[in-house]
């Protein structure tokens, strides 16, 4: 059993625990490499099926390739795809790219708030209709009690403190000092009414593991991760105005793995190209306490 097999087996185990314990289960899906591996592991866990909806928080500032990729994959794989967004703020143009507030405030509105209200069903959810191939407003949306998220412990400080099963209170808040114990393979799967649990199957994976797995399983990822001939590629994907590509000539998964292990990226933080992180002194802690993924 090699390291990737161990990681894979643990993740699958976590997926199945989540599915067995949470009736209203959904999976956050951000189109990035981690999300894509997460989706692949779901198919592994459920023998080719994805028996819960995927939820995408659409800030409307995602790169075009990402949305195209999302909808193509959803239709090809018959995925139950849902998206939600902060319509009010977008309509008022009260966003950072519109010259309003800071990056952190913008993240809070377009991601944290949108996520919170999409999950609890208080804002409209848009669900893909596979017959019409269009998104339709979901009738009578129920709150999710279990939400699978692809965060990894090695991404930044606050994520390294996460549990596999991490409870959120009625306001989606995360109380770091009061996290439940996890004994062996026993997780927090019992939960009080009106709370929900975030489930993190990828917690022990590193960035290199993700790419090694993509290579081993031959998983297709969005083309933004590869150099298209201009000597630039994205290492981490977010909103276009706040994410910049890195200098790299990696054109294949193999080249990315080599670059991360031995090359110039071996010692550069993955989220270095994500501008909101540097605005928050404690990593993403402030955002994450209030519900950010």
């Amino acid at each position: 059993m090699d390291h990737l097999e161990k990681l894979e087996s643990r993740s699958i185990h976590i997926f199945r625990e989540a599915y067995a314990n949470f009736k209203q289960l959904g999976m956050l899906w951000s189109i990035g490499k981690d999300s894509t591996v997460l989706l692949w592991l779901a198919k592994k866990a459920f023998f080719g099926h994805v028996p819960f909806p995927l939820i995408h928080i659409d800030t409307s500032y995602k790169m075009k390739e990402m949305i195209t990729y999302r909808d193509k994959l959803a239709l090809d794989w018959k995925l139950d795809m849902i998206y939600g967004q902060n319509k009010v703020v977008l309509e008022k143009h009260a966003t950072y790219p519109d010259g309003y507030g800071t990056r952190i405030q913008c993240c809070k509105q377009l991601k944290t708030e949108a996520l919170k209200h999409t999950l609890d069903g208080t804002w409209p959810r848009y669900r893909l209709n596979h017959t019409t191939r269009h998104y339709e407003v979901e009738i009578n949306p129920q709150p999710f009690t279990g939400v699978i998220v692809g965060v990894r412990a090695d991404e930044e400080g606050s994520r390294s403190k996460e549990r596999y099963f991490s409870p959120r209170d009625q306001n989606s808040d995360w109380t770091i000092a009061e996290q439940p114990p996890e004994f062996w393979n026993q997780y927090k799967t019992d939960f009080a009414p009106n709370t929900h649990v975030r489930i993190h199957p990828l917690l022990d994976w590193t960035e290199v593991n993700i790419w090694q797995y993509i290579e081993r399983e031959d998983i297709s990822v969005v083309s933004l991760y590869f150099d298209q001939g201009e000597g630039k590629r994205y290492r981490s994907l977010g909103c276009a105005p706040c994410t910049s590509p890195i200098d790299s000539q990696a054109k294949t998964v193999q080249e990315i793995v080599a670059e991360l292990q031995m090359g110039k990226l071996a010692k550069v933080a993955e989220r270095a190209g994500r501008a909101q992180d540097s605005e928050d002194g404690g990593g993403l802690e402030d955002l994450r306490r209030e519900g950010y993924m």
Partner: protein
Amino acid sequence: MDTSMNIVIVGHVDHGKSTIIGRLLADTNSLPEGKLAAVREQCQRNSKPFEYAFLLDALKDEQAQGITIDSARCFFKTDTRSYLIMDAPGHIEFLKNMVTGAARAEAALLVIDGSEGVKENSRRHGYLLSMLGVRQLVVLVNKMDLIKYSQNAFRRIVKEYQQFLKKVDLSVKYFIPVSGFCGDNVVHASEKTPWYNGPSVLDALDSFVTELPKNDQPLRLPVQDVYKFTLNEDKRRIIAGSIDAGELEKGDTLVFYPSGKHSKIQSIEGYNQADKNRVRAGYATGVTLSEQIYVTRGEIGAKQGELPPLVGTKLKVNLFWLGRRPLEFERRYLFRLGTAKVGMRLESIDRVVDASSLENLTRQRVEKHQVAEVTIQLERAVACDLHEDMPETGRFVIVDDYEITGGGIVKAVLPYSSTISWEEGKVTYHDRCRQLGQQGLVIWLTGLSGAGKSTIAIEVEKELLRQNRYVYRLDGDNLRHGLNSDLGFSETDRNENIRRIGEVAALFSDAGAIVLVACISPYQSMRQFAREQAKEFLEVYVKADVATCAGRDPKGLYQKAIKGEILNFTGITAPYEEPDRPDIVIDTSELTVEQGVQLLLEKIRKTEWRSLQ
């Protein structure tokens, strides 16, 4: 990068765990570029002196209070393997986080502040490591710079801590004198401790051994779920779960406990993987069965012909309590073992221990941070193993008010009283074994009169009974008062005597009992006969020569035989054929009764664990 290992670092608050890891990361050049500079800069901005611990204590709360609240994970690599190091908090309030870190670890570093010495949580964490099943431990005596690198001070701490660990059955691989602050013996050997020749922390990490998957044990497949997804006309009905121990193969018959239902494996399922005929311990898998039996989450799949798990509703356990509210009588809790979840109540508290001082405490309830031996009553039967046999299926957690508030290990399954569902049709040997949670076994003790057969058999019987095994002892002497009262000591009668005992023992073994037979049985051919009748047979040669036995002569028989008052006395006037190939020899002229008993108990246990086929 095929090898990886999870390590936890534990110890009392402020003894310097985070500093040591920070130092380890910095000195092995494992930090992301700029991280060290960024933390230094942040310290300068806030007018705080830089500490290596800040590298890990990334959360604001922690930097403000200077303590680790949670188990942070960090990744780091040596030439040997990659590591995931979990930094567990030392403050007592955060013990549940320490448990979380330690429960996932294969090995542990325990830090003791050399200037403060062994403290309450140094001991408590040691106790918990033992209970959580972490078997590889290195102790770091930190802050050596504050005690002038004194060898005597180091030795005192080593001695004191070793004495404690002996009581909780945990051994230490190395004690290392270090200074996280100055870097001594963390990555590089220090010149300041010329009296220390052992490994550095880095070398000690690389000396840990990766746990191997347990393929050679009986199969344990806790059922996580049964899937019947219909999209794309999928017709498969898949039993899904992760294999805790053993391996399964296409065509094997799986028996599920507690229900006892069984069926053959038709296929091993997966997604984007080559067809498989076999899966081993450690893998998450799924199988389809040839018959559509009703199996549910919470059952444990075992393989027919291998040792089954135990089934019961009443368990004796050791547990550790973390709940804000104590563990009390008259309150209902949820018990979770593997994937099973059932209601439970506390039935009795046998002992409560302070995990740090090891003192016995009151028995009315189990308070937060206490360790206890208790008996619990479950609302439904669960399948499990004793922790000492199979840790993966021998440990559990207790849930109170939605929270995991305790964890523990199964020490014994008390006699089974609930009803078990039987299949239609006749009751077979395997059905009986399943209900008893054991297999039939004849343990045949042969040897001269006075060699110690009965003495050993009596002690072994007591111990097996204590372990809740279904056991019965047949004593050659006693049987001659009843069943064999018509027989004398001629060769023909002796053979008939053994034939009867052999048949009776075989019947008991068919009933699922462990039978201890103590009789001289001097002839090889009759012992062979007894072996052939039994389900499973252990020939135990209780060895002592004639002179030794005659010297003991507990019943005065040798004296009578020598005087000619008894005819056909084995060893004096009748032959004794030594066993050609006994399964075990217990030489009572060399061993004490206790040693002999231990030897046999060990052999029985090994025999039971060997698969039947």
